[in-house]
């Protein structure tokens, strides 16, 4: 199945793990009503992307490119969570809530 054997761990394994993480992250983003929860879901999605990069780098022939991108992803994730959480805090301070179903000021 999918070129995945129990004996040699290859690219497909990693991709599978990454896919599971992605889907869980998405699920998290979709269902959470807590803004911080949503952010955590995004972290998961980013991590899954990171796994993909590093795996591709390991099993491909493009040197360290993948790893470099993984580093960038981590960096971006950090930036994103810092800002995201700051925003959440700001919102909380203003509206005393971080429940996304109540944060609908942007409704058109």
């Amino acid at each position, binding site marked *: 199945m999918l070129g995945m054997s129990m004996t040699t761990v290859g690219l497909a394994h990693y991709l599978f793990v990454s896919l599971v993480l992605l889907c869980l992250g998405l699920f998290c983003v979709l269902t959470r009503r807590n803004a911080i929860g949503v952010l955590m879901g995004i972290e998961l999605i980013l991590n899954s992307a990171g796994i993909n990069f590093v795996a591709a780098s390991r099993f491909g022939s493009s040197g360290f490119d993948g790893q470099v991108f993984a580093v960038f992803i981590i960096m971006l994730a950090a930036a994103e969570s810092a800002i995201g959480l700051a925003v959440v805090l700001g919102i909380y301070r203003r509206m005393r809530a971080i429940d996304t*179903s109540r*944060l*609908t*000021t942007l409704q058109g």
Partner: protein
Amino acid sequence: MQALRWIVLLPLIGAAINLTLGSRIQRSVGRAGVAVLGSGMALASFAIAVTGFLKLRALEPESRLLLDNVLPWLHVGSLNVSLAFQLDPLSAVMVLVVTGIGSLIHIYSFGYMDEDPALWRFFGLLNLFLFAMLTLVLGDNILVMFVGWEGVGLCSWALIGFWYKDHANTAAANKAFLFNRIGDFAFLCGTMLLFWSLAGLGHATLVFRELDTVVGLLEGQALWGVPVATLATLLLFIGATGKSAQIPLYVWLPDAMAGPTPVSALIHAATMVTAGVYMVSRLHCLFSLAPFTLNVIAVVGTTTAIFAATIAVTQHDIKKVLAYSTVSQLGYMFVALGCGAYAAGVFHLVTHAFFKACLFLGAGSVIHASHHEQDMRRMGGLRTKMPLTFWTFLVSTMAIAGLPPLAGFFSKDEILLKAYQHDPLLWGVGLVTAGLTAFYMFRQVFLVFFGESRAGASLDPHASAHAADHHGHHVHEVHESSAAMTLPLVLLACGALTAGWLGIPSALGGNNLFTEWLSPVFASGGEHHGVEHEGLELEYALMVVSVLVALAGITLAYLVYLRKSLNADTFSRIARGVPYRLSFNKYYVDEFYYGTVLAGTLALSRALGWFDKVIIDGVVNGAAASVRAVSILGGGIDKVVVDGLVNFTARAFNGVGGALRLAQTGNINAYVYVLLIGVTAVLLAGAW
């Protein structure tokens, strides 16, 4: 000659200083400061003009031309125009009149405006006017002339409305400017026609001395079936009727009397209004090509002359009488031009400048002394209280009435002679006008200076109560004006007495210096010298007739207004008073113009304004209607259909937006849903 530009520039500098820093000068140096600056510039300009004149006279008659090329102005395509000034015998005459009389009026103004807080503005504008007028007469091409032409319009506007707090004055100012502009519009069209017609012949030029040589080529050219020369001259003449107050554009001039009296004297009697006469004489080569236009000019001139004279007979306002008299006299000048007697027209222009300026200043002196009373029915008996004013006024009145040997006699007779040679009918009308002129001018003299003082007298029921109140309390204060005012009066009266001697015709033993001086200019224009072959008898006869007619007019005035042996009312009741009312109400021309042209324009403007706001902005009925249909279908009746297509577009966007808005829940999760569904759909489409 470089000095020419200074004739023009000095008044400009004076104007610039007075209009910008004048109020400070007036505060720190005093009223005399601004007056000296203004008058000094005018006098300096006059001095340069005199030297220019002397220089010109020293030259051979054929080569009398001084040029000053200041600056290349416009050189685009085939248009090549410089800011350049020229002094030839014709412009020399004009310059001397403008700067000479202008200087005197500057001096007079210092006395007349002695109570006005904005003296600096007055002198600034007077100087600006001199600048514009001098540009007009010195400009060496039509475009530079046009600068002056419109410039004098501006100054006239500003000076008529000098006392701008009174609504009537500003209305008169605007009226003057607008009627002038109508003329300017025609002038511009005429210029363009002339320019392109000549350009088509390979001589694109607007320079007068070049025009003189090339306009002959226009013969045989036609536009829309009309000879180009005729069309162009007609258009230019309409311009002249605007500036020189001829039918049909004369109505602004009587209203222009709202300005201070020195302004009326300088601008609306002596100089600006003669611009049309100057322009026609300047372009006489062109006008001579168009006999039809000349006939039109002669007819318009005579009609205006008698028309204005009949109005002047019934007016009560001392300045209104003079204003209509000016219109009438300008008509005379145009008669001369129409008869091809350009020199005679210019001669009358010069003499008229002297006596009419003197009359206006005299009237101003009276008005000033009687504290801005202008109604002649409340004057009278001023002869003894204001002797200098009286004598100068009388001299000028005799001059305008055409009594020998005063200035008006010679110039008017020359015109009447030329008119007779051209068409006896013109002469007849001119003669009647002369009689009327003598009558109404002496009516004025008798009413103002003779008899008992009627100061403060109540008028007929038509007069406004306000005027009576206003004048009740200074009955006794009338006295002669100050030297600053009487000196110019005396000088001008001397001019009115003697200016005519420049042009004593050969029939009376003179040699008509004036015509001779101008002959190099008009030689090329085909001026006919018809005097010799008609014989001297005719000339004498005409002179005698005209003097007799003038005396008759004076006698009538004497009988009616001084001896009172004839009652004025009997005249005004002729034919149930219709002629009197027509004359008194100026033939209702103003009302006619207001009712048709002005009201029409305003109505059109309002209609278009409405059209723009409601129709265009509400665009196309169809679009609006369709929007309405859509909104009715939608269940709501829309009231704001008017704003139309624009708003329809907006509404369409709004509708789509409203639909899309539903998607815009503001809920993050919902957005992610949409995103994911989209991604899945793409994957489904791609991968399956």
